[in-house]
């Protein structure tokens, strides 16, 4: 069974529908599935709910899907690097569910691991706990959080073999593995396809079982906050 597709459009063919829940990897603009986001913009599917830690910037990343008004709701921990996002949110056009960053990552991981709910102390006593079941364990309060089961996962890795075994690079790993795990279908974009057998089986971050479709392409990899230090005088 071939997992490798020729383009984002081909890989997305047949899996998109209006109103679907999409989980996306990436943190800020780092490790985001650039090509698949472009593909979804092109496909024009709408009323999307997108679980992603951030929402991109105006002209890059998930910001592009917001610009086209394809997103109905975001599930995120930190947004607002994006003027159009804030405009839609403040005008009530866009729903937003704030989720603590670790709870979001764990909710994705839980969905991928067949865990419909887990207890955490994150958010106890805050607005995050409102409407959630509270349970005591050993005298401490915890709240029940739900696994995320997405219709589609879109993720970005560095390298993969043709069976989808993938490795990520540095902090571009971030939400990509948990996002990949929680989708009924997972599509992954990579910078490089390597021959099967050339990755160290001990060093694979995401086994191919999680990856249903695979594309390779050029990535812009934009930097959001370029910060440098001065070379000390020799």
């Amino acid at each position, binding site marked *: 069974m071939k997992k490798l597709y020729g383009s984002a459009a081909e890989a997305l063919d047949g899996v998109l529908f209006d109103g679907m829940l999409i989980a996306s990897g990436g*943190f*800020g*603009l*780092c*490790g985001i599935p650039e090509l698949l986001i472009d593909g979804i913009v092109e496909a024009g599917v709408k009323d999307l709910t997108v679980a992603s*830690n951030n929402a991109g910037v105006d002209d890059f990343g998930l910001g592009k899907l917001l610009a086209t008004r394809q997103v109905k709701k975001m599930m*995120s*921990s*930190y*947004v*607002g690097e994006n003027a159009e996002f*804030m405009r839609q949110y403040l005008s009530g056009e866009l729903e937003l569910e*704030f989720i*603590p*960053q*670790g*709870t979001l*990552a*764990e909710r*994705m*991981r839980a969905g991928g691991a067949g865990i419909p709910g887990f207890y*955490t*102390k*994150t*958010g*106890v*006593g*805050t*607005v*995050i706990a409102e409407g959630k079941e509270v349970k005591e364990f050993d005298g401490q309060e915890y709240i029940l959080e739900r696994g995320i089961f997405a219709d589609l996962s879109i993720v970005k890795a*560095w390298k993969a073999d043709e069976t989808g075994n993938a490795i*990520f*690079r*540095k*902090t*571009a*790993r*971030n*939400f*990509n*593995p*948990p996002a990949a795990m929680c989708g009924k279908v997972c599509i992954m974009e990579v910078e490089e396809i390597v021959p099967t057998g050339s990755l160290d089986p001990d060093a694979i*971050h995401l086994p191919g079982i999680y990856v249903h479709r695979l594309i390779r392409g050029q990535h812009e*990899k*934009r*930097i*959001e*906050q*370029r*910060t*440098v*230090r*001065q*070379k000390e005088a020799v």
Partner: protein
Amino acid sequence: MPWDRNQMAARAARELQDGMYVNLGIGIPTLVSNHIPEGMTVTLQSENGMLGMGPFPYEGEEDPDLINAGKQTITELPHTAYFDSAQSFGMIRGGKIAMAILGAMEVAENGDLANWMIPGKLVKGMGGAMDLVAGVGRVIVVMDHTNKHGESKVLKECTLPLTGKGVVDLIITNLGVMEVVPGGLKLLELADGVTEEDFRAATEARLV
């Protein structure tokens, strides 16, 4: 004279111990890394998925795949390890990070912390702050003692939506250092030249 940002960071750095794994928030807490004593090993976590965070890169050496939780370009160190965000917050929630040093808008005498949201103002989200304050071993707040209107940020009760309930252990402000103890805050230390009277006048919370 109250402490400046660097003096507050230096004071916070005195809470570090050799071998500690620590998470530093944005702002003054970031400056703490400049004050780690010579010969002491402190490993910084970046909650997007990294232990062993290094300094900013030199011009031209920025790597788009290597950023910190503030989305700034950074570098790695010899003992760096990368992992995914579920693992990263697993270690935070699981209490493996010994200490977080964070900024705050308000702290209450019972350890309540508010640092993510002002109703009516633009809300960007809590990011990882709620996970950090709920999970790490010890939470140290570093902030100005009063707001720009001169009102105390060290309160009987927080007025802003909470980031965490009863989570703060130590408060370092420009006026001094307080520990959260049963019944209120214990004044541990005054900034140079700040009198206890000044300190009490600037503090709404109960000092015990």
